[in-house]
C-alpha cells in the first residue's frame, strides 16, 4: 500500500499541473471557442517573467504576481490587434495565432537567448512521510492549482461577471440586446484566460527547464484535456485532465513514456470519436 502513495501523489501532481496549464485554455478555447495556438507561448512568457524576476533579485512571490499581469497585458494586445477581428473565423484564428506563437518564441530567443534557464525552487526541502519523501514545492504547487481551479470556477459560476460571460458566449446577440457589452466581456474573458496561462508558467517554472520551445509540450495535452473532457466551465477540464494526465503519468511510470503517449492519443481519439462533445459535454455544435 505504502509504495502506492508516491505514485498516486505523482499522478495527482501531474494532473493538477496539467489542469493548471489548461485552465486558461478552458476559458479561451473551451468556453469562447477560440483556438489560440499561441497559448503555450503565453505560458512560456509567464515562466520567463519568473526568470527575469529572479535575475533582478526579486522575491519569488513578486514573480508570481508579476507574470499574470505582464501576460494579461500581452493578452489584451493580442485580443485588440488580432483575435477580435477573427472571432468567427476558426481557420484564420489558427493561422494567425500560429504565426504569433512563432513571433513570440523568436522574441524570447532574441531577448533571453536560445538556451534553457532554470528558476530556483522557492521552498527547498522535502516532506518526510514514513519511508519516502516528497518535495514541498510540489505540494505547494498542487495546493495553488486547487485554489486557482476553485477561484476560476467561482468567477465563472458565482459572479455577475461570470454570468454575463457565459451568457455572451452562449447567445451573443441576445446578451447584447439585454444591454450587455459583448465586446468588453469577450475581451476580459480572453485576458483572464491569458493571465491564467502566465500565472501557470510562473508557478511551474521552478520544476521545469525554461526554454523558448517549452510552450508546445503543454499546449497539446491542454487542448487534449478539453477536447476529451468537454467545454463546460471547469468540470470538463478536470475530467479531461484526469484522463489525459492520469493515463500519461501512470503508464510512463509503469511501462514507458512512449507507450504512455501512444495510449493517451488512442484514448483521446476514441473518446473524441465516440463522444464528440467530450466526457461531460458542454460543447455545442457551431
Amino acid at each position: 500500500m505504502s509504495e502506492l502513495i508516491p505514485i498516486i501523489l505523482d499522478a495527482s501532481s501531474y494532473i493538477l499541473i496539467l489542469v493548471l496549464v489548461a485552465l486558461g485554455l478552458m476559458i479561451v478555447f473551451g468556453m469562447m471557442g477560440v483556438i489560440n495556438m499561441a497559448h503555450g507561448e503565453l505560458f512560456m512568457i509567464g515562466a520567463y517573467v519568473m526568470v527575469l524576476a529572479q535575475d533582478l533579485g526579486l522575491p519569488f512571490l513578486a514573480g508570481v504576481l508579476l507574470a499574470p499581469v505582464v501576460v494579461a497585458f500581452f493578452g489584451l494586445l493580442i485580443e485588440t490587434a488580432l483575435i477580435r477581428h477573427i472571432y468567427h473565423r476558426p481557420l484564420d484564428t489558427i493561422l494567425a495565432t500560429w504565426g504569433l506563437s512563432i513571433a513570440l518564441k523568436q522574441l524570447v530567443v532574441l531577448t533571453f537567448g536560445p538556451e534553457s534557464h532554470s528558476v530556483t525552487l522557492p521552498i527547498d526541502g522535502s516532506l518526510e512521510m514514513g519511508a519516502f519523501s516528497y518535495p514541498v514545492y510540489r505540494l505547494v504547487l498542487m495546493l495553488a492549482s486547487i485554489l486557482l481551479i476553485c477561484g476560476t470556477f467561482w468567477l465563472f459560476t458565482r459572479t455577475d461577471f461570470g454570468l454575463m460571460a457565459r451568457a455572451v458566449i452562449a447567445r451573443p446577440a441576445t446578451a447584447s440586446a439585454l444591454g450587455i457589452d459583448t465586446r468588453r466581456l469577450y475581451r476580459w474573458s480572453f485576458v483572464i484566460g491569458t493571465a491564467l496561462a502566465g500565472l501557470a508558467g510562473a508557478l511551474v517554472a521552478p520544476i521545469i527547464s525554461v526554454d523558448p520551445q517549452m510552450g508546445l509540450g503543454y499546449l497539446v495535452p491542454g487542448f487534449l484535456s478539453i477536447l476529451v473532457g468537454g467545454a463546460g466551465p471547469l468540470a470538463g477540464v478536470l475530467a479531461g485532465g484526469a484522463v489525459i494526465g492520469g493515463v500519461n503519468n501512470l503508464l510512463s511510470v509503469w511501462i514507458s513514456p512512449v507507450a504512455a503517449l501512444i495510449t493517451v492519443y488512442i484514448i483521446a481519439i476514441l473518446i473524441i470519436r465516440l463522444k464528440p462533445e467530450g466526457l461531460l459535454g458542454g460543447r455545442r455544435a457551431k
Partner: protein
Amino acid sequence: MLELQNLSSGYGDALVLRDFSCRFENGQVTALMGRNGMGKTTLLKTIMGLIKAKSGSVMFNGQALEKSPPHLISRAGIGYVPQGREIFEDFSVQENLRLGLLGHDPNTALPLDRIYDWFPILKERADQRAGTFSGGQQQILAIARALIGGPKMLLLDEPTEGIQPSIVHDIGLQLARIARETGLGILIVEQNVDMVRTLANQVLFMENGEIRESCDIEVVRRNDALLHRYLSV
C-alpha cells in the same frame, strides 16, 4: 417617441427595408402584421442594432441610435424580446432575470418584486432551470427579462409562436396591463389575431418592406377584411 426615417436595411446586398419611415408615440401599443418574409423581424432587428441600417435614421426620444451597438440601444430604453424567446436554457430563472438587469442603470431598472408581482410563476420557480420551462413560461421569462431593465419601449417578435392559446391570452392581458400601468410603449410583430385584439391600440399592415395600411384596432375588431387581405386568414 420612436421615429424611423428613410430606413434601409437587409442582409448582404439584399435590401428588405427600403426607405422605411414610421413614428411610434410613447405609450402606444402598435401591432405590426403581415405575412412571413415581409420585413417585420428585419425592422425590429434594425431598430435594435442587431442588423446595421444601410441608411436612414432611428431617433428615440431625441437620441440618434442608428449607429449604436445593441447594448447602447438597450440602455437607451428599448427592450427586445426576440423571436424564439432565446432564453438562457442552462441558467436558472433568476439568473436569466439578473442578466436583464446587469447591463442597465440600477436607478432606472425595475425592482425584482415588481416583475414577480406581474408574473408570479417566475417567483415560484426562481431557482428552476429555464430550459425545463414550457414554451409559454419561457416566453413570460423572456418578456420579464426585457422588462426588468426598465425600458420605455418594448419590441416583441412573434411572442405567441408555438404557445397554447390560453397562455397567449394571459400574456396579452398582462402586457396590456403593464402598458397601462407604466406607460410602456410596445411594438409587437404578431400573426396571432387574438393577441393583437387583446393588446394593441393600433395596427400596421406590412408588405414587401413597406407599410401598406395603418388603422385603429377598432377597425380590425369590426371587420376582418384587412386581416384577409394582408394575412390571408
